[in-house]
């Protein structure tokens, strides 16, 4: 029984590897460092280049084993094995769930999945007060409850990504019956997998026996669901920018980014400080740290397609509500006409042209400034912490992010 589960999963990984080999994951491009100048905040950093991979892997050593939820415990659970087997049936179809799964398996360390790690690092950086010794993971310097919270953070994030990956099936979208069946089945599995993660979150949170944290994290789930209802959408729910004459791009970007991630990381950071017995006031600083870090991260991701050194293939889609595009819309609203071509389907937009227009405008520089602002605010929160290895690791991560 057990071995059949594992072999099912291994087979799925194999199939996914085959599909991945041809396309270089976008995150690889993110690892690129140019060794540029470092600010004053880097004084705690190690002497080597602030390499992203290094910053993350060293940070992981500080708080113990990796936090990614694809630990053995998870692999061997009934439902995940079930999902894996069902996913295998989907390989060969075009369902976006595969892309999401691939992201979880291979890009684990390099994208948002490092969130659990951030929560643990902050936990260790802040230390804990008056807590029962039995509840501490001494080697890592964090509480078991904080570890659970970090896991919940990743599960919430993942479940949201998986549910976002559903396909909107409407009559006439798929002409072939077989494709329609694949998509329907994919949706079923995606919905259930996401629900599975959410239900596990509820159980893990309940086990903490701390209703303040349960409420806080439940509200983070609510925020994520709200993010899918902000602004104009195409038929697949991909976001489109608001008419630049009607709104403020920065405010729009901030609202979207806060709802779709900032609040989750913020609330997790706040929650972990509360678990450690810190005051409400101090924990709010944690919220600020998490939120600004997430927004800086988002700005960083948004910049990537427009960087001169970008590995982004010309003409391939990027988010139409990414910060550079929104900033450019504010600077020159005539771009909006090009974007409206995607009102029904964002793929109808001429990405190569938008990319070239935006790259020549001020959008990229303004996004860089936006990222710096948020990085700076996150750093300011860290400054109030005592010097320790976890704090250094966090600032290393922020610095490395600035150099991507």
């Amino acid at each position, binding site marked *: 029984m057990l071995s059949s589960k594992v072999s099912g999963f291994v087979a799925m990984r194999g199939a996914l590897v085959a599909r991945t080999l041809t396309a270089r994951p976008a995150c690889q491009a993110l690892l690129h460092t140019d060794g540029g100048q470092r600010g004053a905040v880097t004084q705690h950093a190690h002497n080597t280049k602030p390499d992203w991979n290094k910053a993350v892997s060293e940070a992981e050593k500080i708080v113990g084993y990796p936090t990614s939820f694809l630990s053995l415990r998870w692999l061997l659970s009934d*439902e995940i094995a079930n999902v894996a087997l069902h996913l295998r049936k989907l390989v060969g179809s075009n369902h976006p769930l595969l892309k999401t799964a691939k992201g979880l398996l291979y890009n684990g360390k390099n994208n948002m999945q490092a969130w659990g790690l951030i929560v643990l690092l902050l936990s260790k950086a802040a230390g804990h007060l008056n807590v029962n010794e039995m509840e501490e993971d001494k080697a890592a310097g964090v509480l078991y409850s904080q570890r659970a919270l970090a896991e919940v953070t990743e599960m919430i994030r993942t*479940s949201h990504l998986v549910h976002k990956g559903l396909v*909107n099936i409407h009559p006439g979208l798929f002409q072939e019956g077989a494709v329609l069946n694949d998509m329907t089945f994919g949706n079923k599995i995606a919905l259930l997998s996401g629900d599975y993660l959410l239900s596990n979150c509820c159980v893990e949170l*309940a086990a903490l026996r701390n*209703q303040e944290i349960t*409420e806080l994290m439940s509200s983070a789930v*609510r925020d994520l669901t709200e993010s899918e209802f*902000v602004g104009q959408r195409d038929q697949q*729910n991909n976001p489109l920018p608001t008419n630049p004459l009607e709104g403020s791009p920065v405010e729009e970007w901030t609202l979207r980014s806060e709802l779709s991630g900032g609040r989750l990381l913020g609330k997790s950071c706040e929650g972990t400080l509360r678990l450690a017995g810190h005051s409400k006031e101090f924990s709010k600083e944690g919220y600020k740290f998490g939120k600004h870090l997430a927004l800086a991260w988002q700005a960083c991701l948004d910049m990537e397609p427009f960087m001169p050194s970008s590995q982004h293939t010309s003409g391939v889609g990027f988010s139409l509500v990414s910060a550079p595009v929104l900033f450019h819309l504010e600077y020159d609203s005539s771009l909006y006409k090009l974007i409206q071509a995607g009102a029904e389907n964002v793929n109808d937009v001429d990405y190569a042209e938008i990319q070239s227009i935006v790259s020549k405008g001020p959008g990229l520089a303004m996004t860089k400034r936006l990222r710096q602002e948020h990085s700076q605010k996150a750093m300011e929160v860290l400054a109030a912490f005592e010097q320790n290895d976890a704090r250094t690791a966090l600032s290393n991560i922020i610095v490395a992010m600035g150099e991507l």
Partner: protein
Amino acid sequence: MACLGSVRLCARVEKLCQIGQNAQVRRKASSVKLKQFVDLPLTRSAVKSCQTAVPGSRLLSSVRSQQPGSLPEYRVDPYQLVDDDLKNVHFDIQEELRRHTSHDELYTIAQYYFDGQGKCLRPMLCLLLSHALNFHIHKKDKPLPEAQRRVAMISEMVHSASLIHDDVIDCSDFRRGKPSVNVLWNHKKVAMSGDFILAVASILIARINNDDVTICLGQVLTDLVQGEFMQLGSKETENERFTHYLTKTYRKTASLIANYLKAESMLAGADEGLTELAFQYGRNVGLAFQLVDDLLDFVASSSALGKPAAADLKLGLATAPVLFACEKYPELNAMIMRRFQEPGDVEHAFELVHKSQGLEQTQFLARKHCVEAQRLAERIAESPYQKGLLVVTDLVLNRMK
């Protein structure tokens, strides 16, 4: 005998309608509810219409007449007993949802099934049991504490959230007599709305501020998802199949009722034995409810159900009537294995189920669970609410939709 029974029932309906005069707000809803349980003639004609649609179906009376003529006196209407708390459940839920989002579309989708049309079985049971246990423990009736009313309300929220996700999973067209959510809005938004309701429900659970209640209600979600996963697989051998079906039924339906009643009992200050009693009562009522549901899928018309008939077969699901029918008609096994996918499978299986004793056996099993629930309810101190708990089991067993 069915005729005789219906005359007697009609007299009771009149009596009940008289009682109903007092409840101004809920009168309409409650008379509808009474009808669904006792208006036999209506359902028989409905069955006839079903018969013309699907050849081989038999009159519902063949099932009904299996019951001894021991329908209880409906002097107690469980819905009436908890009307004060129940009538606002949907309104309160809408208010909570509204409070938690500023996005109109999200709110519109999320509140779609809270339109006062549902049976409200779960909150009704929660309220009834809370009253009964409070009376049992404190020896007098008093207004329900806020926490117990909240749990009743949350039970309906979680149930509806699971319905919304079910609609996407099953691609259903109709529910409760109106288009399903997934017909009106796109899948992604519907899925998010379900998550939203769950998130708000979790927030409300946390605010009750009772660790054990949160743990108990968290378990329900895991069960719901695991039940749904079980429904995806059908590879079990013949022997395992029935256990699989019952476990799935517990997780998908009974766990919610059992655990919410357990939570209510904990809030009432019940000791371990009484908590277990509440849980087992809920489990048995829940199992009976789902068994009858699976039975109705074969005998009731789509207009009575508010959703298409034989829906389970069309979804490829083998429920109790089919599994029982298997004993007499082994050819059903192959159809179960291929999930009734081949042309004619659904009609053929439908016919075989009606030819077999499958419906009667399902009814018998449901009755067994109801008897067990009654036995448990009899151990609670006598009160109108405790009587209500007894009557509910009959309503569950004899319902028509």
